[in-house]
């Protein structure tokens, strides 16, 4: 690299000085865009702490974290968030119990068993599942899932821990599936061939070679799924019941429950600014941020470690010797079974216990006799049913919303403002408002994100500064959307003083999608072969000329894909705009960016939770939002596939 740079500056002759100046200023601009991510993180932390600090001072950190009573509006208010922390952990745990087996089965199916044709259906289906906005999940959960639970469990309300966990589990599916599928697919083909060539069955190859080799990637996938579940607001808030209690007994999944995010979503809109309650909510946001940051950074660390291991193959003695590994395994097995037994003994009637025991004993004796072929058949059946279940979930959700939503769609619905609190009339201002919001957000985020990515990939070698910036981006990426909402409210709405307005929402959404844009741009820049850059530099082109004429053109499809995906995501988000940009019902479109707007997701949220008797319009709004978001996603997928084929062919 150095040699090339010297070579190019040598050839540029008389114009060298001005061109060097130009190159330097361009580099500075890119550096600033990259550093912006860091500034944003610092600002977020600063403003959260500024507004959250009083609660730590007045209530005390220990009382705040471990106090068991959260009654901020009572005559004698109490600010103990322990039930909220427990609630968050329990809901996430439940979600993982549901999501992990389904996702792993599905990931194994997609990467190892599915025929190309099935893959072609299943992969977009999973991406579609990821594209459904969280408020639509919440809506579906509220209308269908909670009713189902209420009736089948015969309890007064279905808004429970169970409902929240099922919904969050479904929402975490796409993340876990796609990351672990990546991990499984990138296990070198040679391992698979080597194992099959020895005469191992496909299932032995999968379970003993492929999955172990992909294990750290799978772990990262699960951690990312946990991060997604912990940070989710709207869906949980709509189905969890939101009583700030610790379930009793602790495994009572039919108890209502409240999470950290849910608390912010419910109370932030009604709190008086500057009160202790207001400060306490920022305290909650800090706790939430810390939890998600730890989760996401550990996932990122694992994934990065994996990528580095791929390039440098170093000799290292294993930390755990085989003997110790054996005994650890045995210990884990025994303790796992014991815990399971205790749980079953407490939670289920006696005949269940006997059934489990019998099954265990039978399995233990039969295990030796069953041939590998039968084990394989059983395993594949389970894997395939996981994939079928995932597909079925998607079909059920889509079918419910489409069938119930279609009757609402009419020319009037799409072009008229709402009447009678949204029970009648249309959603035109909400559609326009959502478009304004996402277009503004992308116009802010795209230049910043692309600039930052160019700086990271083209102008620096891995060093302290890039590591700092990358960490900043990762932190930003892991921040729950509700925290962006709080930050936007505290900083843009109040501190800068825009009031609740379009521009505040646009900026908040822009900050939220910034990391996605940086990531996808970085990826597509890295995919441009180094040889192209060297070829251009060797002809005497400057760095900026090389970037502009050689590096950027092939990267454009990737950047465009990233941008469209971000638009789709921003269009479906509720939490960031809830306190910064939206009003519920308006007959008019905004005249300037300093006025509030209507937005589809927020409109749906209010209709679903606060306006009884708006059934058709609810479904209609959900359908329009879904179509809008899915349209963005499908455009992105089409663009990506088109260019992928072009590159391959």
């Amino acid at each position, binding site marked *: 690299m150095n040699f090339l740079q010297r070579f190019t500056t040598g050839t540029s002759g008389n114009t060298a000085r001005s061109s060097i100046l130009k190159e330097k200023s361009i580099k500075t601009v890119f550096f600033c865009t990259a550093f912006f991510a860091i500034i944003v993180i610092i600002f977020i932390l600063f403003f959260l702490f500024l507004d959250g600090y009083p609660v730590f001072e007045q209530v005390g950190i220990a009382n705040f974290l471990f106090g068991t009573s959260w009654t901020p509006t009572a005559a004698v208010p109490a600010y103990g968030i322990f039930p909220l922390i427990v609630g968050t952990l329990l809901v996430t745990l439940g979600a993982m119990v549901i999501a992990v087996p389904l996702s792993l089965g599905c990931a194994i199916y997609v990467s190892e068993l599915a025929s190309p044709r099935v893959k072609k259906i299943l992969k977009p289906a999973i991406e579609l599942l990821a594209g459904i906005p969280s408020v639509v999940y919440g809506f579906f959960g509220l209308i269908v899932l909670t009713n189902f639970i209420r009736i089948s469990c015969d309890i007064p309300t279905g808004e429970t821990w169970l409902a929240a966990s099922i919904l969050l589990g479904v929402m975490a599916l796409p993340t876990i599936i796609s990351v672990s599928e990546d991990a499984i697919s990138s296990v070198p083909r040679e391992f698979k061939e*080597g*194992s099959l060539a020895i005469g191992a069955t496909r299932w032995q190859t999968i379970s003993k070679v492929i999955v172990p080799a992909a294990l750290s990637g799978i772990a990262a996938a699960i951690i990312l799924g946990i991060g997604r579940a912990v940070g989710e607001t709207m869906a949980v808030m709509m189905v969890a019941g939101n009583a700030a209690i610790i379930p009793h007994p602790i495994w009572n999944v039919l108890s209502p429950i409240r999470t950290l995010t849910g608390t912010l979503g419910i109370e932030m809109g009604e709190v008086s600014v500057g009160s202790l309650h207001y400060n306490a909510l920022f305290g909650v946001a800090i706790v939430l941020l810390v939890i998600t940051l730890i989760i996401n950074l550990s996932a990122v660390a694992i994934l990065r470690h994996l990528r580095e291991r791929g390039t440098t193959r170093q000799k290292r003695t*294993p930390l755990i010797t085989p003997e110790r590994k054996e005994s650890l395994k045995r210990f884990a097995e025994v303790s796992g079974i014991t815990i399971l037994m205790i749980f079953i003994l407490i939670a289920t009637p006696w005949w269940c216990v006997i059934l489990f025991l019998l099954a265990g004993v039978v399995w233990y004796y039969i295990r030796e006799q069953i041939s590998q072929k039968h084990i394989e058949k059983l395993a594949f059946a389970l894997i395939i049913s996981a994939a079928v279940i995932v597909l079925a979930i998607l079909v059920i959700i889509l079918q419910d919303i489409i069938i119930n939503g279609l009757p609402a769609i009419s020319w009037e619905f799409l072009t008229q403002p709402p009447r009678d609190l949204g029970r009648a009339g249309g959603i035109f201002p909400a559609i326009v408002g959502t478009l304004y919001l996402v277009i503004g957000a992308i116009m802010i985020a795209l230049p910043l994100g692309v600039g930052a990515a160019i700086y990271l990939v083209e102008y620096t070698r891995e060093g302290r500064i890039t590591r700092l910036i990358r960490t900043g981006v990762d932190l930003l990426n892991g921040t729950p959307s509700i925290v962006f909402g709080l930050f936007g409210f505290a900083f843009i709405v109040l501190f800068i003083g825009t009031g609740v307005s379009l521009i505040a929402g646009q900026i908040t959404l822009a900050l939220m999608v910034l990391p996605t844009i940086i990531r996808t741009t970085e990826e597509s820049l890295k995919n441009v072969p180094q040889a192209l850059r060297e070829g251009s530099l060797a002809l005497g082109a400057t760095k900026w000329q090389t970037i502009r004429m050689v590096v950027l053109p092939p990267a454009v499809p990737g950047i465009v894909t990233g941008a469209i995906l971000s638009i789709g995501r921003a269009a479906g988000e509720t939490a960031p705009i809830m306190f910064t940009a939206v009003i519920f019902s308006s007959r008019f479109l905004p005249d300037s960016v300093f006025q509030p707007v209507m937005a589809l997701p927020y409109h749906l949220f209010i209709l679903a939770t606060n306006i009884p008797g708006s059934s058709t319009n609810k479904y209609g709004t959900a359908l329009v939002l879904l179509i809008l978001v899915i349209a963005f996603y499908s455009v992105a997928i089409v663009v990506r596939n088109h260019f992928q084929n072009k590159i391959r062919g």
Partner: protein
Amino acid sequence: MSDTPIISGHNLNLWYNDTHALQSISIAIREKRVTALIGPSGCGKSTLLRCFNRLNDLIDHVKITGEITFGDMNIHAPGTDVVHLRKRIGMVFQKPNPFPKSIYDNIAYGPRVHGTKEKKELDRIVEKSLRDAALWEEVRDRLADSALGLSGGQQQRLCIARTLAVGPEVILMDEPCSALDPIATAKIENLIEILKKNYTVIIVTHNMQQAARVSDYTGFMYLGKLVEFGETRQIFEHPSETLTENYITGRFG
């Protein structure tokens, strides 16, 4: 010296999508001999090799006609037990592909998946396989270390040992030395010389000297056809086809 072939192919054709990659190939592999397949890149020699243990099954859109028999087993018959077939016909790949496990676990993997559980028996198999692959002395003190820490040549001998541990009758080798330096290559070639006492070896190679050094029979392939097949000495000294002669004398390829 038995002259009955252990593997024989009749009128074998293979298509990848629309590409006719193998064209009416008939070949007879002799037991406990080394057979080399040579030819320029893309001539189908690796594809042919992968037909013998049905590893082409892993690739989508492959169509095969014709017949290959192994003993009394029809390799491509729908009812063939692929797992059993691959146990009897082992394979060593172009790039060494040890699993990301310890040296011991790599060798023990095969016997384990085939149901051997007893530690003593596994120990015995691991040691014997490593000895047979001429690797035992180099790794006996670090069996618990990761196999990825071995050198390329050692990794390749580990893969050979891994194949031997299952007790195959035939060993397929797909350019086993192409990723190795000359010294490591020489070690593998010596090993092949020893292996042929007990095993039938089929080796695909780019290196004509290697084919001449290690093999008893040689097949020359070109554009999906088996142009000439016969005893190595005859192929290299008096080829009957001009195409073969041109390739061997380096006029193309």
